[in-house]
């Protein structure tokens, strides 16, 4: 389609006006005009627009996440917002699959992972407060279900200390630092006593009785013997006379 004659005339007039290469200017102007015509025709006919050209010129506007969130939430939220925001009708069709996933996505980027050294340094040792104790109790109560069978009941009782621990340890609950031989073989405490005579005889009987006594501790037995020793020491003079 040829350009209109007025345009051509105008172009040549401009070209003659400009001091530079007249011919070149004129041809450039006319070429440009022609390009305009072509583009107009194309777009009139609804021809393809080069998207790439369009987009490359566009600058990406950065939105704050909050604004973006609000926009999306206004688009998606259906329920009556309790805080009085505009109630937008649902635009997204219910069949559309929400492609959000736990695995992909951005993070908040507020915190940074502490290295283990800083973690240890930050941990201050303090005795648990009432808050900690009660929280621990509450947590333990979540999974404290009643026992489902007799064995679980026995487990619970063993933990509470009501049931004996199997295999039975017949020294359970007894705090005794001494071994059994220290209870029974007590002759070594009789070294200070005379080797013969009625006192020795008497003390051997005492030791025999003590060794059979399960109720006294070793210390108490030794104390017992020492008491006798002190007693006989005091009465030594009396006995010597006899």
């Amino acid at each position, binding site marked *: 389609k040829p350009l209109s004659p007025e345009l051509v005339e105008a172009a040549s007039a401009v070209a003659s006006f400009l001091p530079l290469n007249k011919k070149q200017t004129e041809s450039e102007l006319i070429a440009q005009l022609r390009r305009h015509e072509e583009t107009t025709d194309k777009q009139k006919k609804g021809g393809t627009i080069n998207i790439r050209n369009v987009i490359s010129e566009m600058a990406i506007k950065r939105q704050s996440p909050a604004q973006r969130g609000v926009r999306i939430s206004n688009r998606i939220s259906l329920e009556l917002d309790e805080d009085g925001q505009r109630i937008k009708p649902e635009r997204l069709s219910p069949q559309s699959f929400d492609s959000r*996933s736990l695995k992909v996505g951005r993070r908040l980027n507020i915190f940074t992972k502490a290295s283990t050294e800083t973690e240890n340094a930050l941990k201050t040792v303090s005795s648990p407060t009432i808050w900690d104790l009660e929280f621990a109790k509450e947590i333990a109560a979540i999974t404290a279900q009643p026992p489902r069978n007799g064995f679980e009941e026995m487990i619970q009782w063993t933990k509470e200390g009501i049931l004996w621990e199997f295999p039975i340890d017949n020294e359970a609950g007894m705090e005794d630092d001494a071994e059994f031989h220290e209870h029974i073989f007590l002759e070594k405490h009789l070294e200070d006593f005379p080797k013969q005579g009625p006192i020795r005889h008497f003390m051997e009987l005492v030791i025999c009785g003590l060794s059979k006594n399960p109720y006294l501790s070793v210390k108490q037995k030794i104390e017992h013997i020492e008491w006798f020793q002190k007693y006989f020491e005091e009465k030594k003079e009396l006995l010597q006379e006899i």
Partner: protein
Amino acid sequence: MAARRLGASSWQQVVLLSRRCCLPGGRRERYRCSSSNTALGKTVENSEVTQEEIVLPRRKIWDKLAVLQTLASTVNRDPTAAHYMFQDDPFLMPRNAANSRLFSLSKESGRNAAKYIIKQFPQYFDKTFAEPNIPCLMPETLTPQIEGLSEEALKERIHLRRVKDSVDLFDQLVQAGTPVSLETTNSLLDLLCFYGDGESTPEKEDLEEPGVNASEQEAPKREFQRGSQPSGSRWRENNNAERIFKIMPERNAHSYCTMIRGMVKHGASAKAYDMYIGLLNERHKADVHTFNALITAVPYLKERFLERWELAKVFLNHMAQQEVQPNLLTFNALLKTLRRCGGVGRNMALLVIKEMEALDIEPSLATYDHLLFIFYRGADLCPSGIISEVLGDVGKRSFTPQDPDDANFFATAMQVCCDLKDIKLAYRLNKAMEKGDNWKFLDMDRLNAYWSKFFSLLCMMEQIDVVLKWYKEMSSSLFYPTPKNILDLLQALDAANHLEVIPSVWEDMKQLGFNRRQDLLEELLSLMSRERHPDEIQLAFAKCAEEIKAVHEQTRREQSLLEWTGSTLGHVALLFSRAGRTQEAWNMMERFQQISRIPTDQVMDEFLNCAKKTNCPDEAIKLVKLAASLGLPSSQRLKNRTEKEFELSEKQKKTLESIKSDSDSSDSDSDSDSDRD
């Protein structure tokens, strides 16, 4: 001769034997032939092991519970028995959900009553019979030992959690001028803030569990959930905590933190925020628990969703600035706040999850619970893959409790599965629950609700044989069907055309105590009477109908008489008729007038059929009379049928005729009316 030879031969044998023993290692000393057999045995053994090292196996130390735990793992659930805690007397086994809750509460109540007695009267429990002593069954000494006005006495009272005594003692100390250390004051503040100025163990407990008869409670009960505090106490203005806080000569970060936590716990969120500003002004650093409390208080501080999120982010940024590391509870609190932020919550929740992942914090069940609530609550359920991923994560491992909200997860998840009507998700959820210790997160109430919802979903979505299999396995041992479950089951049976199972469902209904529920009875009767069935089934249906009739007639004390409705009466009459029980059917028909209802045509036709089959023309005539007296339009038709189909005696014919005249006159009246019009 023989004896000598024998003797010789035996002697030779002995020589041979000894020689054989000496042969292998005659040189070595060990193989010295000795007469004693035991020595021989020992030397032979030793020769074999000289070449190898004897490695004694290390003695295994078993945990005291190992054997019991192994034994417990061999026992599975018995599908025919109730829960173990009810196995005492078969009469006392609970039959439905309400009873099971009542019984378990009463069991706990008994234990609490015993503890109360031991606590109140320790003088009767001073002898220790058990060896070794069992401290948990003995009374505790909770009376303070230290007397006098000293910090030690105050510390002891704080330790024993005697709130009022501690406050009084503190006031006395302050008045006397004795300085109280910061640490002790802080622990006093801890005590006060935790209990919100109430006592730790209230004197009079009027806490009533719902549904428990007041007359059954003899001893004052504690709450059923151990360790939970009554959260109804609110933060009073200028209570002891605030007062003591104000008069403290010096405060540190701990004082502020405990005040903030107390205020948030007892509902004074605005004050907590002001206290936090005070903390910042003093240039203190809050700890992670305080921040968690503040984040939970956000929904009470702001109304609009965006503002809530912004405030929460402010707190998070402060945490980062003060170099306080967030923990699992921080993020759970954040998600809990996002639950109340509508659409903003949905967008931000996933970012929170990714943040947790970046900090290597493993989510707990509460995290997933909040997630499911955020994404699946409300009407706009866009199908998303979130629940599938959540189930995948949960099913992978066995969880330990870390957050009080962990217990809600399974109930929420099952609710979501029901809303989505997805049975496969429900199966996956069940598998996740059976993994490891996850089952422990469901207590009695939640367990019942969980399985009840699952069963409803099953009835909706699965084949009838699968439904019945589950029903047989689960009912009474794992959960007690609710009325809704029974309705769903009936509908499923109807859809699968399996109505012959209905009599057994009726048996279960009786056991569950639902035999007086009007809605269930209606459904049951209508299903049974809709179509004609083969004879045995019809007889079974009639038996059910008879029992339902008995239910309507009996009154026990405290129970009102169950009323007949038109439809139930009609159904029962129909069922009797179909089974050929004419007399009983007639009984039913007579009651229609009592409740001023009219039987339907179908009922009357069936009755006539029955009368014909059982050859009771008298009943037929009575029916016609009834219809005529009620002025029903079908009475003419019934009369014709009676005339045609029955063999009537003269007397009967005459009675029938007389009825005719009644209906005729009424007809003529109506005719004349219509003529006039």
